[in-house]
């Protein structure tokens, strides 16, 4: 079982920030810097929308309504438009999630390779219900649309890492790898 699919470039740090009070994004040097850099890459301000949504998630652990409004303001977009784009992608967490955000593919290839069972197994081992944050703040498990690695079904994405050929039985193994040294939740 390979740990990281080579095609995946780290979009988010492996461990998401713990859920904490939502920080304003562009009021400090770091945020402004990220915005500037991103803006410089696109012909229109609008182009920086996806990277800024990702940045908000990286910074706050999830994509809050406040962050969406702030991004709308920074990019001269309407809040409704930003919400529309943000909610189109399942990869943006519109609710607070655990530090490990486990997305289990249940699309066709994964479905025929027991994707649903893998999903159930994750729920069971993390003691959560779909989309919920575990009590210790560590995990959130959701079903995902095709993760684009159908040859390795069932595919599970945890934050920026892909785990492939996962079966219901190997779920504890995956979890164990998330925080080496720590006992499984």
């Amino acid at each position, binding site marked *: 079982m390979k740990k990281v699919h080579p095609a995946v470039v780290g979009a988010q740090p492996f461990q998401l920030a713990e859920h904490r009070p939502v920080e304003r994004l562009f009021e400090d040097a770091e945020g402004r810097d990220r915005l500037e850099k991103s803006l410089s890459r696109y012909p229109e301000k609008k182009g920086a929308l996806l990277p800024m949504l990702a940045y908000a998630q990286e910074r706050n652990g999830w994509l809050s*309504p406040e962050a969406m*409004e702030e991004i709308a303001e920074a990019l001269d977009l*309407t*809040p*409704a*438009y*930003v*919400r*529309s784009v943000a*909610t189109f992608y399942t990869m943006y967490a519109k609710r607070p999630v655990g530090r490990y955000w486990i997305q289990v593919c249940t699309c066709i290839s994964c479905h025929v390779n027991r994707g649903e069972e893998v999903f159930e197994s994750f729920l069971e081992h993390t003691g959560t219900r779909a989309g919920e944050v575990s009590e210790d703040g560590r995990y959130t498990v959701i079903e995902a649309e095709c993760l684009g690695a159908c040859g390795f079904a069932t595919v599970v994405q945890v934050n920026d890492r892909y785990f492939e050929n996962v079966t219901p039985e190997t779920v504890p193994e995956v979890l164990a790898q998330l925080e080496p040294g720590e006992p499984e939740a």
Partner: protein
Amino acid sequence: MSPKIEISLNGSTVEADASATVLEVALEHDLFVPHLCHHPDLEPAGVCRLCLVEVDGRMVTACNTPVTAGAKIRTDTPTVQQTRLGAVELLLVNHHGGTIDCEEGEACDLNRIARFVGADEARLGRYRPPDRTLPVDGSNPFFTFDPGLCVLCGICVRTCDEIVGVAAIDFVKRGFDTTIGSAPGKQWIDSDCVSCGECVERCPTGSLSFTGFETPEYEVTTTCTYCGCGCGIHLGVSGDRIVSARGQRENPSNEGRLCVKGRFGFTFVNSPERLTTPLIRRNGALEEATWDEALDLVAARFSAARGDAFAAIASAKLTNEENYLIQKFSRAVMGTNNVDHCARLCHSPSVAGLVQSFGSGAMTSSSKDLGDARCIFAIGTNTTAAHPIIGLQIMRSIRAGGRLIVANPREIELARHADLFIQHRAGSDVALLMGMMRVIVEEGLHDPEFIESRCENFEAFQESLAEYDDATVEEKTGVPFAKIAEAARMYAENSPAAILYAMGITQHTHGTDNVLATSNLAMLTGNVGVPSGGVNPLRGQSNVQGACDMGALPNVYPGYQKVELPEVRAKFEQAWGADLDDAPGLTHLEILRGVTAGPIRAIYLVGENPALSEADATHAREAMEKVDFLVVQDIFLTESAEYADVVLPAASFAEKDGTFTNTERRVQRVRKVIPPVGESRSDAWITCEIARRMGASGFEFESAEAVMEEIASLTPSYGGITHDRIDQVGLQWPCPDPSHPGTRYLHAETFPRPGGRGRFVPLEYRPPDEEPDAEYPLVLTTERSLYHYHTATMTRRVPGLETLRSEELVEIHPRDAVELQIASGDRVRVTSRRGEVEAHALVTEASPPGTISMTFHFHESPTNVLTNAAWDPVAKIPETKVCAVRVERA
């Protein structure tokens, strides 16, 4: 007009517009092609897949397929029918579980389409019904959104974006979960939505539906009572109540669109607080009286106050006919020119200034043509709040690639749509505009040919520009000169360019100069006498243009004919059979001052509320308290009516016949929709009754139509206007004779001035009368809320509008707020040299540092107690837009 081509439609050859879509051609030929996501006002989207037809044997969506010469179109082949049926079935299953018989009935297009294609409920069982129920969003007081009925046609989303320009809503989520939503984490009411209801009006299903409306028994077409946009409106009636409203599509002023006030603001008409009987003050208290008692008393007291002891204040909310009668009554019966109305407080400088430069004080263009401007320069107008439907024309112009320059001391909503936003200091308009003109002349961007052939006094004007060097302009306006120069170029290089302005220009001690600056700018660039250019003062109230036209002004008879001119006076003396005074009368403020320091002993106050609307309102209240005899004629017991000796209950706009003239000079019908409530009577009836009881003749009119005939006979610009001619859509004056088609834009060939030329006027910068100092360190400027109107006598009796905005807010910049230790929601006290007012604070960057702003809609916090009554020497308008104040926590 695009060329015509021939196509074959279900076998017959028909002619079609080459630019039309297949759907448009089919509908035009009365061939129903089911369609859900198409709306004639919107760009085609092609998302519902119901409008399938075959073109040359290929299946396409008709709504976004252009016709081509020789195309063979079939709308009814078995393949079309079958595929369409499938699409309808899928939609039905997702539309509240697929019942065809639903309570929405004919109101739901999907329902009608289902019947048309012969959908069968029994067949729907084959599909898996949706397993979700999304909550209804009922947060808005005027409409609800039920996602369960939504077919995701996107008409609402496109309406809000393409027409309203707000884009408050969008599709959220995706795939099966897609729905319509507003801003993140917010309910509809808390989003950017301005509650116009345009999306609801267009929603093809019952998903978005009006909350307070009932199905009317019938509809009556009339004109909106609120702002000067003057929208055509169909009011629905059930019994003797108004139960619905809908925009009139054929009316060029609004093309079917309405704003939140127009669409939902009619319920004040049936408010239980309406005045229903006359009241007479007896032993200090207002007591109910009969009409005879009240009218006889008024007639007796007015008879004793003839001449300059009497003054009438008419209203821009009355019809033309009523304003005409009130000024005729004042002049012919009371023997004085002391008649004025609230235009004194809003647009008197437009009349004074534009008459000087152009010879006519009205908006030069038509509202609709503004949408075709290549550049719009909106200075001192918060158009989307105060003139929402003209605001839509600005959006249209931008969508078509036009430039927008916004100049305003406050960062108004329009600023976010602007190519250039200039936040100049309140009251520095002359410096700003003259600075722009200097750049235009220096860079040779002016129009010498126009100046040469159409204007006069250019040299003197040009000399006066020298004073406005970069440094001076920068200092006065507080704006970097480079930005002002950029605005100058943008305006001069994109023609036609239209200037729009409102109270931000006029309500200053130099209001007339401000107006002259705008007309100088327009002439300089040859932007006058063209359809989508010109200078466009946006008139505030439904009939403020008309009230001026009717001569409810102390210096002119109807049609701006001067009272001092002997030949004019002779004409009116003959027509009215009375001797008329040759001296101009007193203006609004002078009338009230005339009580404390002058001859005024009796005031006839009709449809006006100086207790809240007049600058330095405390003085206005004192005057009303003191005057010997005050008659207030209104639909509610206003703050001013509390000072009255006699209160006469008037009928509302929906209870009488007449005409309003909107801001684009369009004279339009106002119709009796329901009978007057209680014993209220039309203002026309009341004025005529008073005159009659004073023994006067010339007030025996059988109808408003008859009054209009008299108006037309005496007012050249209204010469061709009759109620008959404006039955369906209005006519724009000048309309001198019965065959004249009306005038779409002014000054096409000449200016109505002696000599026919437009006049440039050299201008000198003058600062506001009162500037901040150590004791009163902040500037107070006044503004309007979209949800309220004037002193809110009507809008605050509309519960939904009250929900949307229920109190005064002192808008203050974060920098000032920090200094004063004020947070949003804190109670603050605002003090000026004239008084103090308390309200809650709203910390916002919309107000520039050093300037706070307030509306004047709320009697609990009467802002005009603070404002400065210092006036413009020409127009005598008080400086409501600038005064010095101090703010502290209350």
